Every structure is written in structure tokens, then in C-alpha cells.
């Protein structure tokens, strides 16, 4: 664990969750925070997305309120990404302002309600560009049929939107999230404003080496997405240079989002 102990580690992808009563699941939060401290992380960037259906503004505002509640419990370890449903354009734009200005969140989190290339999402993307904040989007190229999440974005959806908005900062979530990671790397390779987090439970030998080879460490971000041992193990086991690993653990391009919040 010396790699983690001796370097700054920013975890750009993890979550808090609601309990059965719709409140902050404090047990899971505390396990996550303990894991972060135990594994020498400096910061977790977290969100609370709704995984199924088409959440209303009331629902996504509640998610962000709960995320902020978690941050207030652990202000030195956790920051937030605002979850919104871009189908509710006006309410989403208002919610982004609320989360960025009042809660100090660092960016936004989109889930599987719309492909990121869907024109519905464009007002939200333009808002993020105006605010200069990153967009983390749930993503995968799933080869398993039937498709359980038909509106999950894949690398080609990212490529479309990245070429349409070259000034946007798009984070393709979890290369280890269970999809065809080789396909994904080829799909996003040529788009310098698509970044990729390494989180997820899939820890295939070679996945980090391939990601580093296709898009380079400067476009890779460390994350866990609840799979701490897999994500940490991938970093420890990858046959890439120490300098590349250090860059992934604390991507310099993303430091500005932290610095403006005094981190």
C-alpha cells in the first residue's frame, strides 16, 4: 500500500445511499469513510444517483440534500457531485446552481436516464461548460442481452458529445464497471476531453495497462465506485510506470476543481 500511503489519492467516483426509509444510510457511509482512511485516500468525490426509473426534481433534490448531509459529517474526506435528471431541464439547471453555490459540489453526476449524446442533455452540458465543472456519467458497453439499462451511455455516445462540445469535460465512469472495456477504450481514444475513471469490480489483468496505453494517465482518474479492493488492487497490480500511477491517483488536470474549494 506504499503507493497509496506516499501519494495524494483523490477518489473521483464513489457513492452514498439511502436506507429503507429514504434517509442517509449512515452504516454504509461510515464503512466507506473508514475504508478511505484505512487505504490512505485524501478525498472521496461522491454522489447519490437514482438507479431506476425517471426521478423527479423532488427526488433528485432529496438525493443531493442527503449527499450534502454526508459531506457535513465528513467535510475533510468527502465532496459531492450533483445528481440530476436532465429530462427536467429547468429544474436540473436550478439544481446545479444550488449544489455548486450552496453545497460546494465539484461537478455533476448523470446516470442512465438519457444517453449523454441525447439533445435533451445539451442545456445541462452547456451549463457545466459555463460553470467550468466536470460531468461524470454512468457508462458501459454491455454485451449481455437483454440490455437491462438501455439508456446507459457507451463510448460512442461520449465521442459524439465530446466532439460537439470540445470545451466540455466528460468523465466516462468505471472502466471496470462490467462492460466491454476494450471496445470502450477504442471508442474514446481520440477524444481528449473524455476522461475515464478506473473504478468498478472488474479487475481483469491488463485493463489499466490498456487504458494507459490508449488514452494515457493524464486522462485517467482514480475511483472506486464501492469496489475498493478491486480498484486499489488494479492500481497496485498494473504494469505501468510509477509516475503514471501517481498521475492517475491525483490527476493534475482535475486539481483546479479541488483548489477552487480550498482542497
Amino acid at each position, binding site marked *: *500500500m506504499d503507493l497509496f500511503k506516499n501519494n495524494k489519492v483523490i477518489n473521483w467516483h464513489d457513492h452514498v445511499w439511502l436506507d429503507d426509509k429514504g434517509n442517509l444510510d449512515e452504516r*454504509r457511509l461510515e*464503512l*466507506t469513510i*473508514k*475504508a478511505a482512511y*484505512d*487505504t490512505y485516500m485524501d478525498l472521496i468525490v461522491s454522489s447519490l444517483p437514482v438507479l431506476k426509473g425517471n426521478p423527479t426534481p423532488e427526488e433528485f433534490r432529496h438525493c443531493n440534500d442527503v449527499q450534502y448531509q454526508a459531506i457535513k459529517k465528513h467535510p475533510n474526506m468527502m465532496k459531492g457531485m450533483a445528481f440530476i435528471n436532465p429530462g427536467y431541464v429547468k429544474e436540473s439547471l436550478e439544481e446545479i446552481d444550488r449544489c455548486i453555490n450552496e453545497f460546494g459540489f465539484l461537478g455533476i453526476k448523470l446516470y442512465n436516464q438519457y444517453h449523454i449524446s441525447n439533445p435533451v442533455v445539451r442545456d445541462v452540458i452547456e451549463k457545466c461548460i459555463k460553470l467550468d465543472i466536470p460531468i461524470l456519467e454512468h457508462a*458501459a*458497453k*454491455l*454485451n*449481455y*442481452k437483454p440490455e437491462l439499462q438501455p439508456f446507459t451511455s457507451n463510448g460512442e455516445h461520449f465521442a459524439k458529445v465530446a466532439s460537439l462540445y470540445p470545451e466540455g469535460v466528460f468523465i466516462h465512469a468505471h472502466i471496470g464497471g*462490467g*462492460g*466491454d*472495456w*476494450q471496445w470502450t477504450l477504442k471508442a474514446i481514444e481520440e477524444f481528449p476531453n473524455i476522461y475515464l475513471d478506473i473504478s468498478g*469490480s*472488474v*479487475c*481483469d*489483468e*491488463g485493463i489499466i495497462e490498456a487504458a494507459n496505453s490508449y488514452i494515457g494517465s493524464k486522462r485517467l482518474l482514480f475511483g472506486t465506485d*464501492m*469496489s*475498493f*479492493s*478491486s480498484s*486499489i*488492487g*488494479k492500481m*497496485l*497490480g*498494473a504494469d505501468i510506470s510509477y509516475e503514471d500511477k501517481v498521475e492517475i491517483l491525483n490527476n493534475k488536470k482535475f486539481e483546479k476543481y479541488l483548489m477552487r474549494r480550498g482542497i
Partner: protein
Amino acid sequence: MIIDVNTYLGHWPFRKIKYNQAQTLSKHLDNKQVDLACVSSINSIFYKDTQQGNIELSEEIKDYKNKFIPFAIINPSYAGWKKDFIYCIEELKMKGLELYPYYHDYKLTDENSIELINLATEMNIPIHLPCAVENIRQKHWLDTNKNLSLEELDQVLAVCENTKFIVSNGSSHEIAEYLIERKKLKNNNVYFDFARVEIFNDDLYKLIDTVSADNVVFGSVSPFQYIEPQLVKLQYLTIKDIDKIKSDNIKKLLNL
């Protein structure tokens, strides 16, 4: 000492795999402080006649007997399975039987399957049941759509109460709970690895609480997966019986 219950050698048709030869995997395991590894032939999963892969494996590891413990892959729906299995155990000195019903298109509950499992039990050979090889969500379009069937496992446990099973590369904590609810783990005859069980959310502790440290073993799925995620779990696992999990349980199971 670490003994790995789940490694492979051979050619995987859907993705280039590093360290898939005895020499390279042996060195790789050495580098990760894995002392011994149960190993089977990827080729046996794909050859129609699995025995050709078993014989290849035996030849491949002949100079690495201090590193690898060979397991036979047998398809009980393919002619000659009984003779092949006996040959693997008696002549090739294989120590375990590994089954892939979801690749070889049979059910664990088929008559021949039960007969093979009972024969292995009579010969004091444990049955290794990997839940999958690669994660199904990234599967190649020609790869199987299935994983190990828990319903079939449940039914087999009911009729093979004295057989020793190793279940690997799946959600072991959930599988163990499923089997406990059905009263199928009363003989302590099922062992689980933790390749796909997280420690930092307590799932690994749940698994150990459910089946006890006497029935948990180390499995890495190397060379398909990095070994380090499993080593991280060992590093953070705070139980006094950790040596059982690292090596003692599998030593006892395989009479090493």
C-alpha cells in the same frame, strides 16, 4: 503461505491473456508471493474433447510440479468421460475435478453429472465449480450467456451430501446465504473463495460468519484477473484464522 484455488493455463479465444503459459504464470505467481496454485486448462473448456486439454495441461506443467496442482475438466455429457476422469486422477495425478455446465451445455443435475460427482467423491476428489470465467457483462458475442446455476447447485448438494465442493469467482457471500436458507451447508462440505467479495463493506466478514473460516479459500482467477485485489483483502482481513484461508483449508481438502 498462499495457495490459489483458481488459476488457468491455455488459450482464451475472446481476449489476449498474459501469463497463460506455465513458465510465465509460475513466475507471475512467484512475484505475487503465491506459493502453489490449482490450475486447469482453458483449452478443455473449448475443445469438444476436454481430455485433450487435460493432457496438454499435464505436459505443460511437468517442469513446474512445485508450483501447480492440476485439476481435470471433464464434460460428463461427452463419450468416454468416466475413463477420462479416472485416467486424469490415476495416471496424470490430478487432484480435483472442475466442471463447466454452462460451457459444455449440460446440467449439474443430469444423471451423468451426478454419476461423475459420486465417482469423484468415492475417489476422494473435490469438485471445483467456478461461477464464471469472465464477467458476463463484457462477454464476447460467441461466449456463453450463462453462469453457474444456483438452483442446480442447490439440487446437487441435496443428493451429494458427502462430496466436497469449491465454489469460486462468484458472489460467495450471497451464494452461501442462499444455500444456508435451504439448509444445504450443514455438512461443512462447501468451500468458497472471495474473488468477487468486497472486504471494505464487510461482505467478506459476512461470508466468514456464514460458513466459518474453515470453509473459505483463496482464489485469484489469474491470469484473467490481477492478483492484487485478493492480496489487498488478505492484508486488511483481521481474523486470527487467516492462515486457514490462505492455505491450510485447501491443504487439508487436497491432502497436501
